[in-house]
């Protein structure tokens, strides 16, 4: 048996900073304070610490995620965790799945296979309880000398200033103060930091209530995602069944607009619903029950001077399509290298504006996708319901209609089209590796062993060079790809590469420039642009 991350209590420890007032010194100054040790805050703090930036990570609790919450972690998120050095443990524990079934009324409408394209290290998704993700990240964080996690440290005041931001922190031993150059709020949908600064996340609130029940059972249900529209056991609503590790199944019941959350949470209400789905003879125990609503919202700006917002504090989405935690981890991925460059004096403070611009753009894309799924699952007008049902009826017989069924689209990272950090193409390229795109993975043969392309990228910018052309005076680390290394030719195809083609990749593995011929001056100019210089 591994550690029980659901019940794990993390120790509050007194920090030396708390004695500053008693010692007559001013509040301690730190380069970065991250608020919230959820998946987003942990990702950001680990990434910064790996880059040699000292980080204080504050969390108001001393527990990991209460309940399984986010359970679908997408390929790109796993690649980011790989870059941080903790992906494999998560993948080993997680449940991989490819098959999905969609039911309408009494019948199977169709089934689908996510059929992830082969030649990628990571699957399209794994299912894993959020407390495992947080627990594994926290375990990793605890090994990093630059990372100081302080549990039971609740932010009670934030005063941004020109020279530093002052943060008041409440602990079991009373209040103390810290100063920092940058404060990053990763403190969730009800962000305390956002509230303290009088800022809002605005958008569309959905009134439908949903019931999550995590059920433990050893029944022989297949490892598939089952989605029911209007099933006989829960008329006029939708239901989702999804497998997690440890024989735990996520069941999500749409309850409608008038459901009373307190009543619906009671086991004597929940258990009959589950029985109706599973059948009378399946033994199960309830692990966790929650009733929720959601809003698709975002802050107008993710940056307010020295205070930056990432994850649910900055933007909210519906749970359909696994875009909450995944997009938040991508926020952290985008911000960490920029903060590290700015703090290291290698880029101007204005580089952080590009964090806000790029991730606001990505949030809009995620909100659009999740709103569309919500409107399909939970139609808000009579006509919308009729078309929804017509689509589901046609889906039984016609492939075109299956593509209209939307029970949540595959969460894929945003391509940062139009970002000011990109250098527009001067040469002609085909394919999807446009400036702004996250680099695609591919298998490589290196020194007679199998490896993955993304695994060969370091934490800095990388110049990816195809073929044998000489590359001199390159301002960034070079990764040369020879035909022998790309033995299956997949990397060459995915990057539409010819001998001599070079790509400049950002530290977060997004493409920022590419050329058919290496030119050190062009690479330097693109590098300056990507660093906001």
């Amino acid at each position, binding site marked *: 048996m591994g550690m029980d991350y659901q019940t794990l209590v993390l120790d509050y420890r007194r920090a030396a900073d708390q004695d500053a007032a008693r010692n007559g010194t001013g509040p301690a100054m730190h380069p970065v304070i991250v608020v919230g040790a959820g998946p987003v805050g942990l990702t950001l703090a680990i990434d910064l610490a790996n880059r040699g930036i000292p980080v204080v990570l504050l969390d108001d609790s001393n527990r990991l995620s209460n309940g399984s919450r986010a359970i679908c972690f997408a390929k790109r998120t796993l690649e980011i965790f790989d870059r941080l050095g903790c992906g494999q443990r998560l993948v080993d524990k997680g449940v991989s799945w490819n098959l999905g079934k969609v039911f309408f009324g009494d019948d199977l409408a169709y089934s689908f296979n996510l059929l992830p394209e082969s030649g990628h290290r990571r699957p399209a998704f794994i299912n894993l309880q959020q407390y495992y993700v947080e627990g594994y990240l926290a375990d990793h964080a605890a090994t990093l000398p630059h990372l100081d996690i302080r549990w039971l440290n609740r932010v009670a005041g934030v005063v941004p200033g020109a020279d530093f931001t002052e943060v008041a922190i409440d602990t079991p031993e009373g209040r103390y103060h810290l100063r920092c150059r940058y404060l990053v709020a990763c403190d969730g949908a009800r962000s305390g930091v956002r509230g303290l600064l009088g800022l809002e996340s605005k958008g569309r609130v959905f009134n439908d209530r949903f019931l999550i029940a995590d059920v433990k059972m050893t029944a022989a249900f297949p490892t598939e995602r089952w989605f029911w529209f209007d099933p006989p056991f829960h008329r006029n609503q939708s239901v989702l069944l999804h497998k997690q590790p440890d024989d735990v199944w996520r069941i999500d019941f749409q309850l409608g607009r008038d459901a009373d959350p307190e009543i619906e949470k009671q086991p004597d209400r929940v258990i009959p619903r589950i029985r109706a789905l599973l059948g009378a003879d399946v033994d199960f125990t309830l692990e966790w029950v929650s009733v929720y609503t959601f809003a698709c919202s975002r802050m107008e700006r993710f940056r307010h001077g020295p205070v930056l917002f990432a994850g649910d504090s900055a933007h909210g989405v519906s749970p359909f399509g696994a875009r909450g935690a995944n997009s938040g981890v991508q926020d952290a991925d985008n911000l960490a290298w920029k903060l590290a460059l700015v703090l290291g004096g290698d880029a101007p403070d204005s580089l952080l504006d590009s964090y806000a611009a790029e991730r606001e753009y990505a949030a809009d894309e995620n909100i659009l996708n999740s709103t569309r799924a919500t409107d399909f699952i939970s139609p808000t007008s009579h006509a919308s319901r*009729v078309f929804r049902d017509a689509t589901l009826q046609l889906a039984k017989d016609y492939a075109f209609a299956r593509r209209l069924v939307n029970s949540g689209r595959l969460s894929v990272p945003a391509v940062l089209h139009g970002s000011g950090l990109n250098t527009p193409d001067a040469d002609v390229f085909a394919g999807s590796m446009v400036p702004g795109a996250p680099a695609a993975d591919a298998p490589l043969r290196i020194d007679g062993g199998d490896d993955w392309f993304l695994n060969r990228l370091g934490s800095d910018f990388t110049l990816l060079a195809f073929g044998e052309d000489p590359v001199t005076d390159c301002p960034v680390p070079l990764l040369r790809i020879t035909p022998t290394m790309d033995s299956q030719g997949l990397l060459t195809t995915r990057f539409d590469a010819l001998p001599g083609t070079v790509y400049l990749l950002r530290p977060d593995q997004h493409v920022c420039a590419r050329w058919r011929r290496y030119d050190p001056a062009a690479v330097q100019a693109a590098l300056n642009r990507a660093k906001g210089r």
Partner: protein
Amino acid sequence: MTLNTDPALAEPDEFYAALIEMHRGLSPKQSEMVNARLILLLANHIGDLDVLKEALAKARAGI
């Protein structure tokens, strides 16, 4: 491509009769569902989003 609003039906009377015949004996609710299915089938046949958006706008205009 733009939406063709010039006469294009080879047999207009025949089409119209078939359209009405499709609804014969159906309740208003069933007719509504058949119409929705028909729109989805035809939309897929047309395929072009600009044409479809033009048709959506023209259908809605004046209502």
